[in-house]
């Protein structure tokens, strides 16, 4: 199936802050949090319901923020039924794994509520609940630097007619303070793209060629308008 797809929004969440293609920029100093230690506070513009946000583990909070920064709150209701979710990450849920494992050998140390977050797909489940998304949900575990595989997967879902939109999240959140003691590689950046099936009357923002090119384009889109390269069409 050959379906025209366009990028409706893009955002980046990293150690500097949150930036999206609509021009919103919030840095962590404004948020008064320390992202290197994965202490992430709730903010109305990204968090939605504060109580729901606070129960999330740090990685899921970052994914949640990225989803909101891509404008999922504005997604038309009928489209939510056919909006897929893809997360491609090297670190996955390692931060939650380490915290849960630490509790195994301490009296009353296990956190039952944390166990669900020791699945890397759970972060996507939280986004699905928050935004009422009922399309396919896919976590791809990738080596560091190969996150564009997630964009390819999102394009495939739409191209195959299995979804009409897909939020693709590339990267993860494993601060050095958590990663280094066990010898893992830190990951502190999530780039997200909201892919949508182009309506017949709409001019596609770009014609996607491959996931890697699209991801690069999205990164430049959120890096600042001054250094944005030409569209990869």
């Amino acid at each position, binding site marked *: 199936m050959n379906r025209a797809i366009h990028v409706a929004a893009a955002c980046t969440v990293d150690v500097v802050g949150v930036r999206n293609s609509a021009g919103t920029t919030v840095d962590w100093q404004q948020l008064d949090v320390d992202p290197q230690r994965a202490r992430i506070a709730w903010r109305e513009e990204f968090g939605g319901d504060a109580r729901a946000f606070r129960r999330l583990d740090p990685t899921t909070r970052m994914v949640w923020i990225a989803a909101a920064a891509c404008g999922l709150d504005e997604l038309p209701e009928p489209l*939510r039924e056919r909006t*897929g*979710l893809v997360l491609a990450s*090297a670190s*996955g*849920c*390692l931060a939650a*794994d*380490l915290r*849960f*494992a630490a509790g*195994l*050998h301490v009296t009353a140390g*296990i*956190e*039952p509520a944390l*166990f*669900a977050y*020791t*699945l*890397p*797909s*759970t972060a*996507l*489940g*939280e986004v*699905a*609940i928050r*935004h*009422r*998304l*009922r*399309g*396919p*949900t*896919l*976590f*791809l*575990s*990738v*080596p560091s630097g190969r996150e564009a*595989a997630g964009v390819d*997967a999102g394009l*495939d*879902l739409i*191209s*195959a007619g*299995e979804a009409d939109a897909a939020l693709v999240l590339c990267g993860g959140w494993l601060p050095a303070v958590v990663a280094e003691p*066990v*010898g*893992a590689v830190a990951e502190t950046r999530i780039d997200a793209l909201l892919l949508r099936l182009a309506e017949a009357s709409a001019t596609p923002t770009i014609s996607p060629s491959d996931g890697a090119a699209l991801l690069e384009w999205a990164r430049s889109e959120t890096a600042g308008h001054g250094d944005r390269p030409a569209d990869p069409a």
Partner: protein
Amino acid sequence: MNPTVVGRGAVSCFGRGAARLVDAVFAGEQGLRPRARLAKVECLTSVAGEVPREVVDAAGDPTRLPLAMAADAARQAITEWGSAPDRHTLLVLATTKADLSGIAPHGGAGFGSPHRLATALATELRFPGPTAAVSCACASGLAALAFAGRALRAGRFTRALVVGVDALHEFVVRGFSALLALAPGPCRPFDRARDGLSLGEGAGAVLLSAVDGEAGAELLGWGESNDANHITGPSRDGTGLALSITRALRSADVPPDAVDAVHLHGTGTPFNDAMEGRALARVFAVPVPAAGSKAQLGHTLGAAGLLESLIALGIVERTGLPPNLGLQELDAECPPTLQAAATPLPRAERVLKVAAGFGGINAAVLWGARR
């Protein structure tokens, strides 16, 4: 053309081989036994579907089990096919926790990372093609089949080796125990007195081909959805799983009445089994014959979609359903066609396999008879 199954492999609590697995399930053998390797783990169950130590040599190290089991199952599938995979063959690994070395008190650097395990598996098999690693909770296996099917239909690969694996580990057993999800004894899916799930382990493999002339049972279609409802519990009304099933039927381009049987997820938890009853009722105007196998295998998590697809293929080939062990009094909320004993079917051309997992993830795959 639809992808066809040209090779199968399994490592389960019943031993090695897909045929051994299907024979044991249809014969009503019980694979849930008193915990052996995990005997010292404090948890709320006395049994597990452990792979016998003599079946897979992991040198007593539980973190080596996933790779050993996955490689064994994969080799069986490749051997049945009878040739060597080339660089146009995709390797897709499905797992929830992969190899937990580096996290749990063992050396190593598995870090529970599916892609690390997939890379190790490719190295072990000297696999020349690209790899992908899928983790979608308890729907991982079916999600991996959908991922592979999508790639084959798009013409990017000629074949795909799909392997699902998970090993029992204290991390997982105590996690489910902490959630109070475990049955004290062998689980009893769909029974009124069901009280939780039993855990199992193993690996399943299916080698799919999109090459003309390579005949086998067919992967007819697949569908996936999210409940968007709750992180650990299924949607009570079954709409999420029903959506997956509807999408799988659309993918296969067949109506609901073309489905001859369903192999259920059937974990044995009160909410899951009732949810499946409601989901099927939403899709099928006439109740469709159904069975589940976790009362014999335990819930093998990332391996479940593959191991239980092998059973679904067994239903196609034997034109009959396996028993539902432990089923004494069928819960009125569960699918009404469930029988305690193995039952013949008038027709088994198309068999649906369904799964649901944490994060609200649902998946359905439709298998078809060899043409």
